[in-house]
Structures are given as structure tokens and as C-alpha cells.
């Protein structure tokens, strides 16, 4: 074991110029999302694009702002794949969600609404 392995690397890689360009990219992607909100399109299509853009933004934030790009591969492999698998496992609920659309309770009368706000005297 060499000596330099025994300490924690405190050097913070990445120049301010790089971080500003990442910030600009994040803003551009956000503006694109807002623009897309007003394009008439299929809901599934919209959801796919928005989630894709969000994943790109999350990747940029994790890689550069959270500095993961400059960490050891072993740290990234410890944290990320397990998280992704766990999140994907949550998708197991969706078939039930789509199924229950057909089982929805049909209101005979109007559904409950909020009581009217109390007027200030």
C-alpha cells in the first residue's frame, strides 16, 4: 500500500468555467421543458421526453455539482446501481394502477367539494 492511499483526496476538481457551463445547460433544458409543456402532444410521449430531460439534468448535477465524476468508480458503483434497481422495482405497481381505471367507483351524485372559504368580516 502506498502512502498517498491513506488520506482522503481533498482536491476539488473542475473549474468555475465548467460549472457555469453546466448551470447554463441546466437552465436551457428547463426552458425546453417549459416550452414543451405548451406543445399539444400525446401524454405518454410528453412524459417520456420530460423524464428523459430530467434524467439528463440529474446526471449533470450528480456528475459535476455533486462531483461524482471525479470520485472513484467503486463509490459510484456502490451507490448508483442499487438505487436505480430499487426505483425500477417500484414500477411493479403500475399494472394495478392501469387496471383500477376500469374498476373506478362511479359517483351517483357529485363528489365531495371543499366548503366555501369563510369571508373575513
Amino acid at each position: 500500500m502506498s502512502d498517498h492511499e491513506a488520506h482522503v483526496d481533498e482536491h476539488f476538481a473542475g473549474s468555475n468555467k465548467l460549472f457555469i457551463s453546466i448551470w447554463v445547460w441546466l437552465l436551457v433544458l428547463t426552458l425546453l421543458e417549459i416550452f414543451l409543456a405548451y406543445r399539444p402532444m400525446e401524454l405518454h410521449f410528453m412524459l417520456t421526453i420530460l423524464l428523459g430531460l430530467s434524467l439528463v439534468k440529474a446526471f449533470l448535477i450528480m456528475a459535476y455539482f455533486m462531483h461524482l465524476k471525479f470520485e472513484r468508480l467503486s463509490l459510484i458503483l456502490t451507490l448508483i446501481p442499487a438505487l436505480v434497481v430499487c426505483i425500477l422495482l417500484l414500477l411493479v405497481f403500475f399494472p394495478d394502477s392501469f387496471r383500477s381505471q376500469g374498476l373506478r367507483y362511479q359517483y351517483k351524485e357529485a363528489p365531495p367539494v371543499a366548503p366555501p372559504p369563510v369571508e373575513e368580516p
Partner: protein
Amino acid sequence: MSTEAQAGHFPAVDWEGGAFPYRVGHRKLGMWLFIVSDSLTFSALLIGYSYLRASNVWPTPFPFYPSIVFSSVMTFCLLSSSLTMVFGVSASSKGDKAKARKWILLTILFGAAFIVLHLIEWQHLIHEGLRPFFLPEHWVQVFTQNGVPPSPLFGATFFAITGLHMFHVATGAIYLLVVAARINKLKHEDVEISGLYWHFVDLVWMFVFPLIYIMSVDIGGHLAAAPH
């Protein structure tokens, strides 16, 4: 160094038996593990929201002003706060504690702006009559499809998810305030760890904003046109 180059893509070899297998301290590793668990919390909430949304008639009530304008400015505030936080951590790594403190205080300012704007946005919706388990009456009329009314759980998902996120921003701001106050006593790594938490709060918003706000835009302006 040569062993490191050879190790390349074999993480187990990459460790090299050192005291810090990930080349980060135990505090930073702890924060990373917290972030992983907290992202599962938010994932579960967002998936729960999607579950409800896919199995119900769902209202899409957000007008361009105030909702989308406010949430976009809030997004800008959070993204900018992340940038100033990176500058703070960068200054801290160079040993310039005074400069780091200034950047962190600016970060807190952006975070506070986010919370204030978000509370104003909540106020708009509450004033319109939105409650966790009730929709405003005119929303029910506008968004009823084929005789099926929209789900009254809209408010529950909206206030729960944005509320939990706002709570994270608030605790993050307090955390950063403590870090800024004690920065001369803290090590650089501690400043970097507080940055990790702050960026995570920003990251979560990158999913909350499109899924809650962008996906619920009142495109045709149905709500504005309806009498109430």
C-alpha cells in the same frame, strides 16, 4: 500509481487495501448513503402520485401565471443556488474560508427566495379552494370527464410532495447557516458534504417540477374560461 492505471475497471482491485476504500471520508460516505435513502423516499412519493394519476381522472389546473411563472423562477433560484454552492466549495478547497462563507450565504439567500415564492404559490392555490382532500368546486366542473369527476387526491399529492421538498430546502438552509457560521472550525470536507445535501435538494426538484407542474399545465385555459 501504475497499479491504479492497471486496475482500471476492476473496482475491487481499485481499493488497493487502503484505509479509505472509496477515497472519501466516513462522513461524506454517510451523506451519500443518506442521499440514496432519501431519493428512495421521493421516488416512492412520485411513483405513488403517478399511480393515482394513472388510475383516476386527474385535473390539470396550472395556468401560465401564476403557477408556471412562479415554479420556473423557483427552478432558476434552485439551479443558481447550486452554482453558488459549488463556488463556495471550490473556494473552501483553496482554503479561502471568507470567500466560501460569502458564496454559502448567497446560496442560502436563493434557497430562502425559493421558499418564499413557493409559499406565495401555495397561497394562490389555497385561496382558490384547494385542500389536501378536496378540489375547488369549479375545478370539479371543468375537469369532469364522461361524468367521472377528477380525483380529490390532487391536493394530497401536491402538498405532500412539494411540502416535503420545501421542508428539505428549509433544513438545508439551516444546515448551510450553521456551516457558514462555523466555517473557520470546519474542515473542507464538511463544507463539501453540506454542498452534497444542497445539490441533492436541487436534484429532487428536477423531477418534481416536470412531474407536478409541467405535466399539470392547463393548456387550453379551460379553468380560466370557466365561471367561478
